[in-house]
């Protein structure tokens, strides 16, 4: 009787260690290869290396584990079946229509506070779900009461590209900040932005919360 896939996986992964040599890819390259960030040739060389180097194979699985934990799995492959493409297009169109409607509502009521599952002292965004205007990119938030007196706030805005922090500000006295348009000028329309607000309370505690938005 032949092996099941899981048995083959198990035996391959538990194979005796092979000493690493100079051709072992760096940890950084393993990380990037798994995210599809390297050239196809380099990625395939690294994948081929995993056959002969159980150490790198184990390191790959560690990277895989960590990226999965952080929701950083490789993006969707470059080709899909026709049926799936059609379905995806339909979903996208529906989502775009919904977004447009919601976007208009948000524009009409810019100060509406979205209430969710937050606890007292937690932060809530005033932009949640709305696109950010690049000309007047106002980020605003508020603290759920009751909460200790606030000392100050800090904000950090980054793109989904893990390298790029677009804007950061500290020691803010008001729960709002406008990102200078020049900081956003190079970003394409629809860029996914992540902004993290930290509120520092006078009693020495702090609360952070991450919000997501797209650039108009």
């Amino acid at each position: 009787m032949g092996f099941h896939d899981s048995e083959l996986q198990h035996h391959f992964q538990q194979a005796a260690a092979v000493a690493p040599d100079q051709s072992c890819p760096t940890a950084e390259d393993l990380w990037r290869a798994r995210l599809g960030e390297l050239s196809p040739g380099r990625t395939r060389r690294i994948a081929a290396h995993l056959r002969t180097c159980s150490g790198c194979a184990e390191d790959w699985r560690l990277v895989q584990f960590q990226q999965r934990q952080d929701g950083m799995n490789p993006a969707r492959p470059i080709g899909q079946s026709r049926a799936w493409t059609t379905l995806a297009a339909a979903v996208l169109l529906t989502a775009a229509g919904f977004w447009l409607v919601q976007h208009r509502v948000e524009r009409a009521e810019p100060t509406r506070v979205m209430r969710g599952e937050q606890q007292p002292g937690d932060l809530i965004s005033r932009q949640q779900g709305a696109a950010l205007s690049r000309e007047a990119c106002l980020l605003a938030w508020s603290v759920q009461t009751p909460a200790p007196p606030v000392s100050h706030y800090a904000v950090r805005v980054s793109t989904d590209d893990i390298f790029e922090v677009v804007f950061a500000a500290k020691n803010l006295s008001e729960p709002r900040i406008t990102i200078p348009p020049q900081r956003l000028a190079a970003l394409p329309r629809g860029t996914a932005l992540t902004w993290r607000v930290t509120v520092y309370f006078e009693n020495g505690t702090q609360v952070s919360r991450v919000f997501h938005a797209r650039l108009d």
Partner: protein
Amino acid sequence: MDNPVGFTFADPPQTAPRPHELHEGSDPPWLSPERVAELRLELGRAIQRMCPPRLAAQADDLIQISLLRLVERLRKTQGKQDFNLAYIKRTALCALIDEIRRVRARGETAFEPEDGGEPAHPHRDADPQQQLWARQIGDHIRDCLANLITPRRLAVLLKLQGESGRETATILGWTLRKTENLISRGMADLRQCLKGKGHG
């Protein structure tokens, strides 16, 4: 989700380099003590989450190494490039892998749980005959993989590493359909080859 190296997470590191240990003299605005302390804190959290108990004693060193890498990068870019949490975690993981490689190169024990959990290498405690058999299968799988045509070999390798078809497709830059075909045919070739070696 299974932890691939079979470890549980260590206690949080108790100490870590202080900002003044990393740079002397007046700080440029992008390398303020507050910023360094913030990076150290994030790295500490990341290392705490990833570090196997076996390397708990090196947790402070790992934080230090990671922090130096980040500070070096800040210096190189004159603070124009900053880091978000994902990049900080990535730096911590790379430092951890480097340390694991150093331990491995010194021939020290593999990473096993210290809490009585499932051992990382279950067949290690099995009887010698079983160990030999398991090792033989592992070797034969590697041999058989070498005989597969390259695209099938790569697809099957990643499958054996636990990647899904979709993930493999993205990593190798192929369409999902092509990848699934290669995996399917490659696994059939692998089984056939193993059968020829007496497994099956």
